[in-house]
């Protein structure tokens, strides 16, 4: 790639060595946290593009997208502006899209909803992995999955743990969004805590304390828990920078570092 990697890619270690190599990403869990004021969906769009853009040399990666928040046309239009045609990728079987907008799980009918969804995901992962391709599972978003499950946090956590087993079994990556401010009201919520525990990388989008501005849309905090380097040292890094979302890309810059 010609242009220098963005701060986000750098913080996510997406540019380690060969920028097209997604190896370090295998088996990872990424958690995107956002709130009412700042939507973190743009991180997801960025990562979709990273994983299925055709100029990736390891073009053997497939994205499984589970959408609770928006219809396909919404993602398609956004990604098209970023130079990535989801409709074509879907036909090429690089994108497997689950439209879950209408998924309902009545009181005791979880079997029909979440379990069936997991079954579909597992099937898709098995098929794709047998072709020796990287799989990325994206879920947008967990808070809505919770609503679909009628508030049964236990079922949602079971679902996430099952998905997590796929990361070790097939080496796939999981990227999810959670609305963090829902759980910040003091009560003890297990869902965000367990999700944070599972996550290797946490990306938090929040507004600036001074409010929203036209040229700084918010700040990202990226906590990359990293991995043991084999010598018993634990490499973990935390990054913080501002961003500005544009139609076809996102500008990342250090606080005050905007020219």
């Amino acid at each position, binding site marked *: 790639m010609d242009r220098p990697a963005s701060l986000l890619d750098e913080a996510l270690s997406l540019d380690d060595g060969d920028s097209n190599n997604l190896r370090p990403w295998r088996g990872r869990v990424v958690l995107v946290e956002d709130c009412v*004021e700042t939507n973190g969906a743009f991180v997801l769009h960025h990562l979709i593009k990273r994983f299925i853009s055709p100029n990736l040399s390891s073009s053997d990666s497939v994205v499984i997208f589970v959408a609770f928040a928006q219809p396909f046309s919404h993602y398609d239009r956004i990604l098209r502006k970023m130079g990535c045609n989801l409709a074509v990728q879907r036909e090429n079987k690089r994108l497997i899209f689950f439209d879950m907008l209408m998924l309902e799980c009545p009181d005791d009918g979880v079997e029909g909803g979440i379990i069936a969804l997991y079954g579909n995901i597992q099937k898709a992962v098995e098929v794709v992995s047998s072709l020796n391709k990287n799989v990325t599972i994206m879920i947008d978003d967990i*808070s*809505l999955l919770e*609503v679909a499950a009628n*508030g049964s946090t236990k079922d949602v956590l079971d679902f996430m743990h099952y998905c997590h087993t796929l990361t070790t079994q097939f080496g796939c990556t999981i990227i999810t969004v959670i609305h963090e401010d*829902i759980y910040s*009201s003091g009560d003890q919520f297990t869902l965000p805590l367990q999700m944070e525990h599972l996550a290797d990388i946490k990306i938090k989008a929040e507004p600036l304390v001074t*409010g929203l501005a036209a040229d700084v*849309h918010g700040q990202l905090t990226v906590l990359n828990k990293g991995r043991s380097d084999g010598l018993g040292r634990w490499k973990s890094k935390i990054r913080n920078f501002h961003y500005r979302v544009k*139609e076809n890309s996102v500008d990342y810059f250090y606080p005050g570092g905007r020219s």
Partner: protein
Amino acid sequence: MATNKGRTSSFSRNFSAAPTSSILGLKYGPNGTIFLSSGVPDLDKILGGGFHLGSLVMIMEDTEAPHHMLLLRNFMSQGLVHNQPILYASPSTNPRAFLGTLPTTLVSKDDRSHNADAEQKDLRIAWQYKKYLGENKPHIEERDGKVEYCNEFDLRKPIEKHLIMGNRVECISLLDCSSLAGFRDSCSKFLSQLPRYDGNITSAGRIAIQSLCAPQCEYFDKDWDMLSFIRSLKSMVRSSNAVAFLTFPASLVSPSVSKRWQHLADTLLSVKAIPDEDKELANLLTGYQDMLGLLSVHKVARFNTQVPVILDATTYSIKLQKRRSLVLECLNQAPVDGSSGSSYGTSGSCSGSSKTGTLDF
């Protein structure tokens, strides 16, 4: 000459082709979206054109004052004026009676001067939306043509009977719904009767729900039922050409559930009454006497785009112009003494963050 003429005529044809959408009370927006008017011209301008077709609009009520009803009434009246089917649900025993309180369109003798006046005001209020003003102009000039995209309403006069009788208006009392499943079916039935979107929209519908989580409803304590109702309403509306307008008293549900509601909204507004005798506030804001309340814009729907809408101001004052039409204005902060203004020093910054305090401008 002939070619020249041809060119000019083709140019004007293009021009006249644009407002055809306004006949239906709809307007094309950016990113392949379509706008529908909120019934408050100023609110349309603030939101960049109106409500997105297919969006869920939520208003957080002030439990002490019925300001959300002003917005709800204008929203419904605008639908009646545009001959759009309406579904109205409220926790009252006789929701149909509410239709009698809807305001009528404002037609007065001083129409022109008033209009010019309003336009000037718009320029002052929303100069940053000049690009949208340009779009609006053809519609405004078409006054005596057909239907305007957005009308002003006279809050003192009830709407003409024939508009209520001539339109498809369904009224549902939320008190009769023991669970939300029945109400959801009514909504989906209502939406299924709307003509589907097939590239050429002929009509749009409006769903207006007043105080969904009112405590007198049977399902009041079932947080998750209400959430999944809103979620399915949102997805139903998204795939049809309608707008759902929902008001709810946010303080009646627990903070985390309230956040969930807010996340579900495509466009999120809140209204707040202002106390009559708040001396401190009266000193701080000019035109305090005329204000009815405050309207805050928390979230603006963004369909097919990832760029957030950043408004210059998030809090607007609700005023009645000549005691009859609803206008929204930016807050004008009166000059404050450096010494006496210390208490507002933290919250008085020009920030749009809702974290800084109860008031922000």
